[in-house]
């Protein structure tokens, strides 16, 4: 997944701003159940094929290391790769557009359609959908990354520290990344380049 375009964002826009806006707005509008990151991966890597799998993983890594919601940072990274700085602004604006309108409407009403019995069922299913999509993103990225033993151990340690031991995410993120960087041999051989 180290095709040349992945390291050459300056090679010119890959996607028009209008297509970028339309795609990110659709992802934003349909990203129910949490896990917007999973929606972005499925759409950008698999459906549109605008980003290579390795490039997406690079983007998600940077998104986690920089403060702010992962999905928002990821939209900025993806927009930048697809159409430079303007693409980044358009992508993040488009992905937030519908969610902002919906949550503003909820604030104004402060009541909820979710209280209706059928709607509650839909919400439960969409929550489960979000979990399934997030897990699928993990599997797909793992499959594409072709990790060796050390990487797999680090990934499992990060999972267990946060999901089982409830360790603070920033400490896990930077602590294990430091370990990962310091190991002999390093990771540059199959790195993000």
């Amino acid at each position, binding site marked *: 997944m180290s095709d040349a375009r992945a390291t050459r964002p300056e090679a010119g826009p890959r996607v028009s701003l209008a297509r970028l806006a339309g795609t990110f707005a659709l992802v*934003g509008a349909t990203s129910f159940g949490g896990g917007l990151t999973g929606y972005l991966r499925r759409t950008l890597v698999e459906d549109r094929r605008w980003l290579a799998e390795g490039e997406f993983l690079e983007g998600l890594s940077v998104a986690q290391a920089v403060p702010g919601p992962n999905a928002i940072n990821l939209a900025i990274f993806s927009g930048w790769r697809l159409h430079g700085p303007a693409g980044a602004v358009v992508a993040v604006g488009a992905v937030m557009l519908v969610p902002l309108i919906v949550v503003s409407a909820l604030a104004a009403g402060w009541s909820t359609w979710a209280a209706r019995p059928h*709607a509650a069922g839909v919400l439960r299913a969409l929550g*489960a959908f979000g979990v399934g999509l997030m897990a699928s993103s993990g599997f797909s990225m793992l499959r594409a990354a072709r990790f060796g033993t050390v990487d797999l151990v680090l990934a499992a340690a990060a999972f267990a520290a946060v999901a089982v031991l409830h360790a603070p995410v920033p400490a896990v993120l930077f602590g294990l990344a430091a370990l990962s960087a310091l190991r002999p041999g390093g990771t540059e051989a199959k790195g993000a380049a």
Partner: protein
Amino acid sequence: MNGTLVEIARVFALLSLTSFGGGNVVIPEIQRQAVAVHGWLSPEAFTEAFALSRSAPGPSTLFVLLVGFRAAGRAGAAVAVAAMFLPGAALMQGACAALSRWGRRPIVGRIVAAFRPVTIGLVFASAAVMARSTLVDPFTLAVAAVVAAAATFTRASLVGLLAAAAAAGWLAP
């Protein structure tokens, strides 16, 4: 009122700049600040706001709009969202600019690569954390399993899958 807006801006901007690893990291601190420190809303209203925001699409952190609205009306909502999203977004723009300039240096590739296994581990961790409050019965477990399998092994369309899950939820007892 103005004092409240300034406080909202200060609290959320600080949280935005410290949310390394993602927005979910700071939700407990949002609760502490909004409920215990500033009394913008009651613990029950906070829980309600969070649950309510789950019925909307978009990033989970967007529920700060509801917190800001409770604290100071429309202006509070706008200030909360701007403060929570803009500082981190500006940093990310800076990071992308730096990457497009220096991203091809081996040291940068090496640093980014060092995060890769941890990033994937954290994706699974966030699925597990979401699962704890979401997969509460055989129906939700089945939906998550079917979606995970379909999204991983087939090219089924995302919106189609989403519509199927929503329809199943509508019909489920």
